[in-house]
């Protein structure tokens, strides 16, 4: 149960970095304008920034645990929590889509590389995996936009959905909502907007999976139990399936470890495609130096990382009976 200390450590770090380090945030943002010091003091008081750090530390923690992330410093009175909730589905949708794409690409290429090992195809796929990993996400995204949206006009360049389709939001996940409300036009629009961002994010993150799947599949195929399967007269296709199942276990673990990268990549993807998620929210707030908001986002990220690692542990236990019993 290492998430609790991990998240706490991160919370503390974030607090130090974003509350203590920048000095007086009020001054930083509003100091240039000619606001009388008493009014600055008043603002500071309203935001609770004049209390000793220790008090702030625990108060904020308490609030966060109750889902209250405070209010924005720049747009006074605006609830950060409300903002986050509004933006969250977009990011989650993108992250899931990106993950699916990266797994799809990674697993298929790894599979092919394993079954055709030591051929040129195998080497080519592995090189492809290495190269894609060092691509700069905004560059890939913008190139995709240039090619597919501007030159070929096949797909939209940015945004999440075409506003004209009039989608009723139920869950906030546009693709789901359009299915729920039976709005096929919205579905197509949401899907077409999703393709380029998901492809960008997924492609860049797929590389490690190729190598991982290949190595583990080869290991499984060369193992003694596969030999035993052959000796018992089991069909080749079934043996491949069993080997695959064994090979998948490290992939799941890796997917969990890679989640942090997925989040980071999502931030870049969002800004590149003007995808209205938490990533773009973060970047906006950064440009405004809206520290409370930035702090909130970072904490949310930390929390996500913790939760995902827990989920990965559970899935891993499900797949590998050696852990369960």
């Amino acid at each position, binding site marked *: 149960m290492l998430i609790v200390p991990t998240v706490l450590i991160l919370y503390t770090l974030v607090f130090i970095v974003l509350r203590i380090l920048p000095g007086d945030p009020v001054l930083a943002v509003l100091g240039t304008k000619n606001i009388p010091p008493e009014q600055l003091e008043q603002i500071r008081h309203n935001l609770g920034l004049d209390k000793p750090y220790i008090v702030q530390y625990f108060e904020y923690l308490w609030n966060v645990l109750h889902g209250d992330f405070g209010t924005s410093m720049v747009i006074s009175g605006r609830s950060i929590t409300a903002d986050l909730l509004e933006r969250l589905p977009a990011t989650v949708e993108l992250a899931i889509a990106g993950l699916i794409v990266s797994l799809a690409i990674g697993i298929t290429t790894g599979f092919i590389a394993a079954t055709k090992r030591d051929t040129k195809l195998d080497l080519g796929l592995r090189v492809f995996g290495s190269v894609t990993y060092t691509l700069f996400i905004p560059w890939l995204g913008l190139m995709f936009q240039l090619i597919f949206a501007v030159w070929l006009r096949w797909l939209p360049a940015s945004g999440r959905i075409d506003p004209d389709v009039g989608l009723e939001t139920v869950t906030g996940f546009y693709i789901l909502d359009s299915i729920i409300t039976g709005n096929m036009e919205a579905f197509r629009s949401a899907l077409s907007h999703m393709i380029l961002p998901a492809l960008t994010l997924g492609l860049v993150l797929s590389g490690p999976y190729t190598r991982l799947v290949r190595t583990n599949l080869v290991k499984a195929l060369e193992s003694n139990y596969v030999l035993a399967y052959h000796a*018992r*007269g*089991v069909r080749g296709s079934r043996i491949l399936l069993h080997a695959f199942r064994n090979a998948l276990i490290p992939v799941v673990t890796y997917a969990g470890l890679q989640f942090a990268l997925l989040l980071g990549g999502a931030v870049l993807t969002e800004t590149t495609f003007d995808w209205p998620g938490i990533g773009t929210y973060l970047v906006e707030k950064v440009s405004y130096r809206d520290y409370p908001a930035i702090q909130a986002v970072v904490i949310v990220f930390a929390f996500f990382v913790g939760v995902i690692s827990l989920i990965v542990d559970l899935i891993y236990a499900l797949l590998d009976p050696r852990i369960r019993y």
Partner: protein
Amino acid sequence: MSKPILIVEDLTVYYYTLKGIVRAVEEASLKAYSSDLVALVGESGSGKSTLGYALLNLVPPPGRIVKGRVIVNGVDVLSLRGDELRKARGSLISMVFQDPFTTLDPVRRVGDQILEVLLEHGVPLEEARERVVEVIRAVGLPERMARAYPHQLSGGQRQRISIAAAIALKPRVLVADEPTTALDVIVQKQIMDLLDDVRKTTGMAIILITHDIALAAERATKIAVMYAGKIVEYGPKDKVIGDPLHPYTKALLKSVPDIESREWPRPIPGTPPDLRKPPSGCRFHPRCPLAMDICKRKSPNIVEVEPHHYVSCWLYEGGEASG
């Protein structure tokens, strides 16, 4: 003692490696009958495991069966292809491996792995399920063990499961590659008792690959002695142990500690040859105390010195001991 259940004729297996062609098995021949336990005895590198794999056409690349026939119950396994070969494995001839800790799929229940063998050979589900229970009991394990995962079982239990999976379809021949080497002596006895029991009740023949001559002497009905890829002597256990013909066999028997003998065991001088460049003529001649001129030039033929007792040595060329 009718027709042999297994006939191996001139089986030759080479490994085509980057460093040369390893002549792992050279023209091996033997016959086994129903309920036989043929112990294939030899040092490491003698080719016995390769021969075992070859019986199921399971020699891994870069190995290849260059020539020979393996006839089980009238069917030449080596002539089968594709799905026919696959179906023959497990139902006609089957195999149990040395290391019980790595020969079962770690993520599946053992019962499912046995069940799969049956289903993959076309046995209907209900019948298959019953057979799984039957065969698990037959190997001396409780029925509920079918739901266990391999890591929950001991080495001996896992080996029993492997045996269960191997005999589920009642094959005529079972190849056991050092099945007890990784287990302790007590478990070894249990496993060997189990195998004895199965072969006597079902008429299945067992090819037991082992480096342990004592085990062979104890359990086998027939013994085949292998050296450097060739079967140098083959015959009923009592004959091979009691009246060994080949110099290698004699040396091998003398090299084993004997609690009743007053002599120290004597190791065989020299080392096994590199099978990429095997010695000319008889492969044992560099280490043979009785080597003659012809031994260096020509490889000896197989001679039946007495009924069912074969040897491949120039000392016996005339059909009886000479020189």
